[in-house]
């Protein structure tokens, strides 16, 4: 179970400017390598894929392994040429998908 996808993305930028985007989602990132007190392996359940899209087109993707910490944080960059809408999507091992949208106005 994940919750509260959080994104810090700019609301405005100048044309050609490179902007930084920071994302975080609450998730235990169970590695599949731990055992419970009875010695049974706790099944793996992680966020395995993250995608950042702008106006529907993916511009940054992360393929995530169990070595990424709980509550996975990812920061990256984007160089927008026009105004539009970001969509950020997280995929869970259990088939769930989480997403968050944010608008960007490009001036000049």
């Amino acid at each position, binding site marked *: 179970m994940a919750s509260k996808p959080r994104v810090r993305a700019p609301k405005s930028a100048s044309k050609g400017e490179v902007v930084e985007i920071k994302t975080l989602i609450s998730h235990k990132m169970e590695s599949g390598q731990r055992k419970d007190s009875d010695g049974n392996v706790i099944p793996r359940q992680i966020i395995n894929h993250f995608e950042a899209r702008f106006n529907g*087109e993916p511009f940054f993707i992360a*393929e995530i392994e169990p070595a990424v910490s709980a509550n996975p944080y990812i920061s990256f960059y984007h160089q927008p040429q026009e105004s539009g809408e970001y969509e950020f999507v997280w995929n869970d091992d259990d088939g769930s998908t989480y997403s968050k949208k944010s608008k960007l106005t490009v001036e000049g």
Partner: protein
Amino acid sequence: AAGVGMTLMPGLAKASPEEVQKAIKEMIGDTTPQEGKVSLDLPEIAENGNTVPVGVSVDSPMTQDSYVKAVHLMADGNPSPEVITFKFTPQSGRAEASTRMRLAQTQNVVAFAEMSDGSVYRAAQPVKVTIGGCGG
């Protein structure tokens, strides 16, 4: 629950050299990596192996003709060496990204950058881990 896991950490073996080589081959194929272009931003000493900040950047243009396609991060002393793959496009503007990772013990963190012309660049840095991360 994290505390329960920590007590069981000593049972976790690090990946064998063969497993590390297999992981590298899956990341970059048979291409021989060159040194340079890639910079890792890592602490020299990580007090808590459960959450070690890691940043990577590649010195490259980000145009349709020449850009960084992907950066693979690997931790060669974890039970499973793969950490994360960042995939970039010319629209990324800059081949730079960061995350936080688990390191089970003191080890090397290695980055492989795949360029759009097929060449591969590598950088590595040791990180001393004081308290190992669970289930890296």
